[in-house]
């Protein structure tokens, strides 16, 4: 390693390169704590990205403030809280729910969420006899404006490979048990449509406000790997 930009950029285009959070689970041997893997991200990745950024900035091809803004948007402005507000509104307002199921982009824009890639969103509704699950088997398509960037597991080989052939097994791994009489509908995002699950409103939430409901709604429920549940009795709602 030459210790200059040169060496790091060269490494970025060669086959060599250490892995951080590889996408294949350790099928053999002990399961590793992902948190631990992240702490061991090789610093040469940091340096290679820095070198590439410096070169592109030097050439006027990017501007650091624009990069900062893109990162800030994903870290602070979009995320599952947006989706939770959409779902909570649909639970308390039947007219909104109707609009959401018929024309999701317009209904989601009503709440002010239009950032992202301009994806064409579709909302699929869970019911007592129907459970929906979202996946992208070919890459990592995900409804950015309402859920933000996808978690590592969603982009990983284990989830992408098995969600279509063994959705019930995947759901069990997430602690979601479905009886045989429930129909599972998997949505593989093969085009530019982006899916979000409208989970079932749990019993016992009849007196909750829209804001209290939104606090119950998780990213996992909107991907379809989990249901929305009430916190254990005695917990804060």
């Amino acid at each position, binding site marked *: 390693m030459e210790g200059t930009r040169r060496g790091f950029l060269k490494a970025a285009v060669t086959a060599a390169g250490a892995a951080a959070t590889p996408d294949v689970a350790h099928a053999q041997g002990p399961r590793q704590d992902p948190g631990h893997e992240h702490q061991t991200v090789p610093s040469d990745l940091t340096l290679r990205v820095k070198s590439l950024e410096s070169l592109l900035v030097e050439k006027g091809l990017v501007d650091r403030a624009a990069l900062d803004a893109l990162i800030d948007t994903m870290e602070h402005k979009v995320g599952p809280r947006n989706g939770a507000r959409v779902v909570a509104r649909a639970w308390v307002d039947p007219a909104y729910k109707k609009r959401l199921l018929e024309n999701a982009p317009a209904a989601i824009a009503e709440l002010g969420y239009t950032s992202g890639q301009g*994806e064409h969103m579709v909302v699929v509704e869970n019911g007592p006899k129907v459970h929906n699950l979202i996946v992208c088997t*070919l890459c990592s398509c995900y409804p950015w404006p309402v859920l933000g960037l996808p978690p590592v597991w969603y982009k990983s080989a284990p989830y992408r490979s098995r969600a279509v052939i063994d959705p019930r097994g995947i759901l069990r791994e997430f602690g979601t048990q479905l009886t045989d009489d429930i129909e599972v509908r998997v949505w593989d995002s093969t085009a530019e449509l982006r899916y979000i699950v409208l989970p079932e409103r749990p019993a016992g939430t009849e007196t909750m406000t829209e804001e209290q409901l939104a606090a119950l709604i998780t990213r996992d429920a909107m991907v379809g790997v989990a249901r929305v549940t009430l916190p254990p009795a005695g917990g804060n709602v």
Partner: protein
Amino acid sequence: MNGVHDMGGQQSMGPVEYEKDEPVFHAAWEGRIYALNRAMRAWRKWSLDTDRHALELLPPVDYLRMSYYERWLRRLAEQVVLYGLVTKEEMESGIAAPTSTKADPPFSLATSSRWLSRGIASSQDASVRPLFKVRQRVRARNINPTGHTRLPRYARGKTGVIVRDHGVYLFPDTNAHFQGEKRQHVYSVRFAARELWGEDASPRDSVHLDLWDDYLERT
């Protein structure tokens, strides 16, 4: 292409590893390479489809070993050279050549939002006629193109029913390779789990794929 990225139906990938309270980015470099990829696409030297195909072209061993954003780093380092934004010499030296063409005006915060908000091209263009209609039974064609395609292997040759017409979109198989947008209808097609996976699958379950006209044929 029949690449390792086309994962639907594989069973050897191990358990899903879940991280509680996962951060958006696990390290600062992940955020930087995410933003660089998004910003550099704004130069319109390549499309989203080209970007997706570039990842599919990674050698399978690298694809599986690398983390998600490590793939993005490899891709961007290759794309900027391949499409003429940076020379090979500049990549090797890490320094912009005095004679190299610099962007004028440079990509900036002021112009980025306009570029980035352009979105994905689609429309309800009535002049593009759908070849199929809702509730029609269709078969996903048995094709094995060596270039980019969004028709996964597990659905090829299988029969399903169109449940929704999503309107008109660019055709990725040609658009990824600069061979034209070939705009056509995309449909949500429902395939019974048993049609895809056989009698062991649940009789109730189904997988829906979004498929372009050119991926489908009449039954």
